[in-house]
C-alpha cells in the first residue's frame, strides 16, 4: 500500500478562523475508488468498480451534544445543502467555503481500468488460481480487492489531507463448511507479487486438503495454542476492542485494569509504523497525527485508543485513532495495526511442552463481549496435540473463554508474524492488520455440536 499526507494550517477562508468556529466543527471530504477483480477455476474473470465521493460535518457542543450530517457528492450545491441542515445559518456560509475547499483537496483517485492495471490484476489472480489448482484445490476463487481513498479533514485551526491505497488478494478453496481462504496484502516491505500470490494459492489448497477429513474435538476444557494469525485475531478481539476508548468505558478489561495481570511478556501496541502494518497513515480520519499507543505493557493494561471526542472528554491522551467506516460515518476509536511483541519461548518448544491440547491454525470468525469479559472463536482448522506432537486435523468447533482464562496465558512465542483482516464494529467495516507470535492458554472451553 502507499499513502501520502499533508497537514498544516491550510489556506484561510474568510469567516472560518477564530475561536468561534475552531475546534467544535469538523469537516471531512473524501473521494475514493473501490475495485475488485475475480477469477475462478472455470476461468471466469469478473470486475466491479465503485466510485465514491462524499462529505460529512460533525459539530460538538460543550455539553457533549453532537450534530452530524453526511451526503454523497462533493459539489458546492451538495455542500451548501449539507451545511444548511447541520449548522445555524450564521455559520453555514463560511463553512460551505471551507468544506468545498476541503473537497477540492481530496484529489480524485486515478481512473480505473487502465490496461496496465488490468494486466497486473490478471497476472496476480492467475498465479494464485493456478497454484491452488496445481496443489489439488477445487472450487478455487481468487479475488483482488483494491481501494484508493483521498480525504481531507479540517477544522478552524488545521487541515490535513491523506491518500491511502490498499490492495489485498484472497484465495478461496472449496465451498460451504470446508472452504479455506488465504489472504495476502500489499505491504510497504512486501509488495504484492506473483510469487506471493502463488504461495497463497498453494497454502490455501494444501490446508483445504488437510481439513477435508477434519474431525470435531470432544467438548470440554483443554490447553489451546494459537498460531500467529489466530493469536492476532484473539488479541485484537479481546484486548484491542476493549481498549478502544468508547468501548473501554464499559469494558471489564478497563474496569479491572488494576487487578488484572497477564503474562509478563505480553505487550500490545497499536502502531502504524510497524513493518507489518497494512494501512500506514500519517494522520487519522480527523486529521490528527497518528501515534503508537501501548495498550498492554508487560502484562498490565496501560492505555487506550482515542479519537478527538474521547480525548476531549478526558478519557485518555489523544492518540490519533479516529477512523471512519466510510465518509458517511462519524469517527470513532478503532485499531489499525495491533502488534504483540514477541516473547522468549520458541514456538517449537511451546508445542513440545504441551502434554495434551489443541493447536488452532485457522479461525473463521471471532467475537468478544467487552462488557462481560468473554470471547468466542469459530475454529475451522486445528491440530490435536498429544504428548507435545501435532496429531489429526480438527475443525468446526468453538473456543470460548474469559479474561480470567487469558490471565493464565503461560507462553508467548519468540517470533511475531503479520496478517491482515477486515474488522467490523457496529456494522462499520475497516481494513486492519496485526502481528502476533504463538501463544498458549492452559485452559479454554471447547464446544462442538457433534461431540
Amino acid at each position, binding site marked *: 500500500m502507499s499513502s501520502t499526507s499533508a497537514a498544516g494550517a491550510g489556506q484561510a477562508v474568510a469567516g472560518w478562523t477564530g475561536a468561534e468556529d475552531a475546534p467544535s466543527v469538523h469537516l471531512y471530504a473524501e473521494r475514493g475508488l473501490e475495485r475488485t477483480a475475480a477469477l475462478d477455476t472455470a476461468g471466469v474473470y469478473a470486475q466491479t468498480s465503485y466510485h465514491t465521493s462524499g462529505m460529512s460535518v460533525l459539530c460538538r457542543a460543550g455539553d457533549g451534544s453532537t450534530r452530524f*450530517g453526511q451526503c454523497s457528492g462533493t459539489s458546492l450545491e451538495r455542500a451548501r445543502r449539507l451545511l444548511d441542515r447541520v449548522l445555524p445559518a450564521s455559520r453555514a456560509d463560511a463553512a460551505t467555503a471551507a468544506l468545498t475547499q476541503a473537497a477540492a483537496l481530496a484529489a480524485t483517485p486515478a481512473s480505473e481500468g487502465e490496461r496496465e492495471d488490468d494486466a497486473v490484476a490478471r497476472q496476480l489472480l492467475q498465479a494464485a488460481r493456478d497454484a491452488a489448482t496445481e496443489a489439488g484445490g477445487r472450487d478455487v476463487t481468487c479475488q483482488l480487492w483494491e481501494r484508493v481513498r483521498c480525504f481531507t479533514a479540517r477544522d478552524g485551526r488545521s487541515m490535513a489531507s491523506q491518500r491511502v491505497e490498499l490492495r489485498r488478494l484472497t484465495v478461496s478453496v472449496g465451498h460451504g463448511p470446508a472452504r479455506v481462504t488465504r489472504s495476502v496484502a500489499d505491504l510497504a516491505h512486501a509488495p504484492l507479487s506473483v510469487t506471493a500470490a502463488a504461495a497463497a494459492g498453494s497454502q490455501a489448497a494444501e490446508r483445504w486438503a488437510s481439513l477435508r477429513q477434519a474431525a470435531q474435538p470432544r467438548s470440554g476444557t483443554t490447553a489451546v495454542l494459537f498460531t500467529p494469525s489466530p493469536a492476532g485475531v484473539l488479541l485484537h478481539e479481546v484486548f484491542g476492542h476493549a481498549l478502544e476508548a468508547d468501548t473501554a468505558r464499559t469494558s471489564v478489561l478497563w474496569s479491572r485494569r488494576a487487578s488484572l495481570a497477564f503474562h509478563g511478556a505480553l505487550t500490545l501496541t497499536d502502531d502504524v509504523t510497524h513493518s507489518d502494518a497494512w494501512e500506514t497513515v500519517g494522520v487519522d480520519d480527523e486529521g490528527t497525527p497518528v501515534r503508537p499507543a501501548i495498550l498492554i505493557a508487560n502484562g498490565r493494561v496501560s492505555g487506550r485508543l482515542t479519537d478527538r471526542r474521547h480525548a476531549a472528554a478526558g478519557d485518555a491522551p489523544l492518540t490519533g485513532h479516529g477512523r471512519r467506516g466510510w465518509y458517511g460515518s462519524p469517527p470513532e476509536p478503532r485499531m489499525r495495526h495491533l502488534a504483540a511483541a514477541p516473547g522468549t519461548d520458541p514456538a517449537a518448544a511451546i508445542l513440545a511442552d504441551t502434554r495434551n491440547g489443541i493447536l488452532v491454525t485457522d479461525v473463521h470468525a471471532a*467475537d468478544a463481549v467487552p462488557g462481560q469479559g468473554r470471547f468466542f472463536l469459530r475454529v475451522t482448522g486445528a491440530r490435536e496435540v498429544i504428548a507435545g506432537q501435532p496429531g489429526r486435523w480438527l475443525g468446526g468447533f468453538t473456543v470460548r473463554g474469559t479474561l480470567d482464562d487469558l490471565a493464565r496465558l503461560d507462553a508467548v512465542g519468540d517470533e511475531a508474524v503479520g496478517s491482515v483482516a477486515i474488522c467490523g464494529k457496529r456494522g462499520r467495516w475497516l481494513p486492519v492488520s496485526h502481528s502476533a507470535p504463538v501463544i498458549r492458554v492452559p485452559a479454554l472451553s471447547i464446544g462442538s455440536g457433534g461431540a
Partner: protein
Amino acid sequence: MTATSLELCEALADKARPGEYLEVFARHVGTAAVRLAPDGRHWESADGWVVGVLCSAAGQAGRAMGDTMDSRGLAGVLDAARRIRRTAPFAVPPERLCADPAPGAVEAVADVPRPPREKAEEAVRRAADLGPVTATAAATHRTVIRCDSTGWRGSYTENEAQLHVRSAQPGLDAAQGARIRGTARELPAGDVVADMARARAALSAPPAGAHTLDRIWMSPMVTARIAHRLSRAFVRVPGRRAAWEVGTVIAGGPQRLVLVDDLGKVRPGDGTAFDDEGTLRQRTVLLERGRVAGLLGSRMAGPTTGSAHWGGWDSDVAPAVAACWAEPTAGHTEPTEADLAGWVLVAEELRGFRGGLDLTAGQVDFELTGAVLRDGERAGRARIAISARMPDLLRGVHEVLSGTEFYRVKGLYGGSWWSLEGAVARGER
C-alpha cells in the same frame, strides 16, 4: 422529483449506442435521527445516492457503481461499465420480468425528513423509572429510480420511521426494544419501552441455579436476528456454488419452521413492486418441512426471485433478503400460562459470532440469556450456550407465535415469540 434526477437518469439511459443496451438504477436515501443519551443529545442526518449502470452489447455486459447524481458523475459510471464490458465481460443477464408499463411513479425525490424527536422524548419519559436509557428515533425516505434504453421507466418512494430504546446501564445494553412503522405517528413508544423493561428485568436478575430446561422461549428481537442469520443460507451468491439447492432436505422428520421472504407482508401494494433489476417482486418460501423450498436469486444469480439489490458487500448487484420472517404455527402473540409450564428460559439476549448464528460448518453456535421461570414464576437469570447442528436446531423449533414485528438487521427481518424444545433446549449433543 427534482425533475433533474429523473432527467439525468433518463438522459444517461438514452446515451445507448447502436446495438447497446443500458440500464440505469439510482436510489436516494434521506435519513434523520435524534438520539437522547446520558452523554447528551445527538442528531444525525444522511443524504446519499447509489447509482448503478449495466451496459450490454454483442452478448457481453459490464456494470459499475457510483454515488453522485450529476451528469459528470453518471458519465463516469457509464464509462466504467463500458470499460468493464470490454475487459471483464459477463454474459448478458436474462431480460427483466416486470410489467409494462412499470408500476408506480413518484413526483419528487423526497427531502431529508425531520427526525421524530418527540417520539424519542416520549420514550425517555416513559422509561423514567428504568434507569438511564438511550432512545433513538429516526425517519427515512428512500426513492428508487430505474430506467433503461428501451424506454422503460419506474420509480417509487418508501417511508419508514424507527424507534429504538436501549438501557444505558453498564452490562444491560442488551435490554432493548424497537419498532418500525410507516410514519412516526404510528410508532408505539409504550410498547417499545415495555419490551426494554421486560428484557431489563430479565437480564438484571440474580443468577438462577442450574436446571434442565423443558423449553426456551425466544423474544421477537432474538428471533429476528436468528431469521437474519438463517436466511443468509438461502441467498444465491453470484459466482459461487450454492451450499444446497431447492429440494435439499436439511432436517428430516417433523419440522415446523417455515421461513418466507415477502416484502408484501410489510408493505402491501405500495408500489415497491420491482427489485433493483426491474424484476417483479414475489413471495418466496425458503424453508418448509425441513426442506429448501426456495433460494433468493437475481438476474445475475438466477433463477431470479425479484430479490436483486444494488450496493451489497461486494459493491455490486446481488440477491438480498427483502423481508424475511417465519410463518406462525399458533394464533396467539405471547406465551400463555400453559406455554410457560415447567422450567423455561425466556431469552432476551442473543450473542454469537458477529452478533448472531454462525453457519460455517452447518452448525449453529450462539448464547441465549434471559429469565428462568418455573411454572411461570421467575427463578433468576441464566445464560445457555447452544452448539448444535442446523437440522437439530430446525427440529427444535416447536412453536412460532403470531404478531410478527419487523426489525432492521441490514434488511428487514421479522421476529415473533418462538419456542425451542427437545434436545436443543436441554443442551444435549
